[in-house]
């Protein structure tokens, strides 16, 4: 079992949902990213999504676009991102790390070289936003062979036929994009998310993560009631931008929000556990 599957199983057994922060690797630099990863684990997160910066992040809103620009300006690239994971792994062998980014840097490195280097660094899952399962056969096979999970997105526009195909290609968990839009957008329709997550559970046993548009503790708690994992990205990255230049304040701002979310998720009634109501029932 992969590190992701083990962690998701532990959470499921404990009746809890995973809290999954997203930060951009190299924003503002390598050392602060590694330190922040450890601090987030201390604040109670279960898995970390590490953004790989790309010059043309088509699926991201302005907050994460700017983080990518800052990281690239600081010299970040895919190899250095893997270096960050390797450094993190020296002190943390249990927290799963998922890389999230775009395909072209991986194409440039070469699928095989990337799969080998990423597995060697301790990466557990890879989500390439602009690589749908239709184009992903070779890449998915290489990731699996190297012991990593290919993570794929599902969205409000995904048809049932596509949903089945995507879940078949994925392992570890599937990631439901909770709104039509880019990262950091507002206006979540909670009932709609609950219905869609239920529909996903009808076609797969994989854990379901939900992300996009989750910016505060109450929202995280309501998401945790329906999903196995709650991903928070832009809300953290925005705090990092606000406290750029002050590593301590930056860390405190990020961990404070995560701790609030953790607490709200764990104390929320009707959270998603083994005894919970049929998956997908709106709660919170």
């Amino acid at each position, binding site marked *: 079992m992969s590190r992701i599957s083990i962690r998701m199983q532990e959470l499921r057994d404990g009746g809890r949902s995973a809290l999954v922060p997203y930060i951009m690797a190299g924003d503002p630099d390598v050392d602060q990213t590694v330190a922040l990863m450890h601090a987030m684990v201390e604040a109670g997160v279960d898995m970390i999504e590490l953004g790989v910066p*790309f*010059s*043309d*992040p*088509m*699926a*991201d*809103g*302005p907050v994460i*676009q700017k983080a990518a*620009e800052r990281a*690239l300006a600081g010299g970040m*690239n*895919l*190899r250095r991102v893997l270096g960050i994971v390797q450094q993190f792994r020296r002190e943390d062998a249990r927290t799963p790390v998922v890389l999230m980014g*775009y*395909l*072209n*840097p*991986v*194409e*440039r*490195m070469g699928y095989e070289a990337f799969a080998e280097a990423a597995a060697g660094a301790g990466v557990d899952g890879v989500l390439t*936003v*602009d*690589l*749908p399962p*239709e*184009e992903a056969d070779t890449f998915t096979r290489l990731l699996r062979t190297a012991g990593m999970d290919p993570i*794929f*997105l*599902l*969205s*409000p*526009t*995904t*048809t049932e036929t*596509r949903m089945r195909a*995507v879940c078949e290609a994925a392992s570890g968990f599937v990631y439901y*994009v909770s709104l*039509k*839009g*880019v990262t950091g*957008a507002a206006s979540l329709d909670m009932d709609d998310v609950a219905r869609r997550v239920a529909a996903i559970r009808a076609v797969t046993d994989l854990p379901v993560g939900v992300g996009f548009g989750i910016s505060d503790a109450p929202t995280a708690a309501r998401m945790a009631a329906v999903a196995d994992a709650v991903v928070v990205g832009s809300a953290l990255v925005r705090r990092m931008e606000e406290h750029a230049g002050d590593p301590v304040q930056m860390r405190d701002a990020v961990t404070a929000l995560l701790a609030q979310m953790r607490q709200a998720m764990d104390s929320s009634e009707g959270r998603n556990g083994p005894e919970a109501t049929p998956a997908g029932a709106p709660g919170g």
Partner: protein
Amino acid sequence: MGTMTEQHASDKLPDARGHFGPYGGRFVSETLMHPLEELEAAYRRYRNDPDFLAELNEDLTHFVGRPSPLYLAERWSRETGGARIWLKREDLNHTGAHKVNNTVGQILLARRMGKTRIIAETGAGQHGVATATVAARQGLECVVYMGASDIQRQSPNVFRMRLLGAEVVAVESGSRTLKDALNEAMRDWVANVDDTFYVIGTVAGPAPYPEMVRDFQCVIGHEARRQIQERAGCLPDALVACVGGGSNAIGLFHPFLEDEAVAMYGVEAAGDGIETGRHSAPLGAGRPGILHGNRTYLMEDDDGQIIETHSISAGLDYPGVGPEHAWLRDAGRATYVGVTDEQAITAFHHLCRTEGIIPALESAHALAYAQQLAATMRPDQNIIVNLSGRGDKDIQTIAEREGITL
């Protein structure tokens, strides 16, 4: 007049998943996958629908002003020496470029699909103007994304779009040029897929855009093929067209693909010279990669980050190229060459003074290469150059470069 009803054996590409050999495809986030499937289904349905084609042909004839002339540039050919050069006068279309052939088609499709809002990206502004023009005529809301630095260098086109009722949104991210405008248009589309139709202006982007835009632009080549046979009594020996994303080139080339004796030359912007690194020539000096929804040749660094391009012509200033061109390059069916800013400007002036035609700077790249090519050919041979747009939009650029204040 025939447009999309004229089918050729070469229509076999792309394959069912939008691939031209290893290129093309559909590399987008999940939210756009189903909207693209819907678009493809609608396109497959209407491309053979008699009512759709009748309305398209009506608009191309009476709104755009087709067919565009095939003009023998006799004086310019004589001064150049060698082959006879014919100009396919896309500059005489309404809005002054070939772009409108595609926007008329896509916006008719948008209406059939019940979409009420049109978005587009634009670099030089030609595609933005062509989109705003057709959206105005069809009474549809129109938003055009344009890089902030392009807005500065193409202000007349920005004003034109606004006169036509379009909202022009300045894109401040990344390099603030065409590629960033495309990113931003995609982000808009993701958030508004229910009522919005994204009119891509070139033969790039995720499937079905490269095929659909090609098909709408093939009217250029179908007309030219008929016209040259009527006028010269034979097929041309060579075709020449500039390539940014490559829509005017593919429109001219595609109907001739099965005519093996017809050579094809796509002309990329070599900017300050390929050797300087300041250019926009992915086919000449780039590598295959993934950008804007398709696999194609790109200008990228060793880390796979897209790098900034340079050309005096904003319409060629793009780090990618349509996937069918990537395929034609590798297959050896078309040859891709580079022309520098300086060479393009020389050809620009030469055509102005010998033929009374002010060409777009994009088209001037094709003219410059046609001159080089003609000089190696016999006077009984024929070259067709796609004069893809008129140069009024570029007079400020030329004046500035020559130290003249207008």
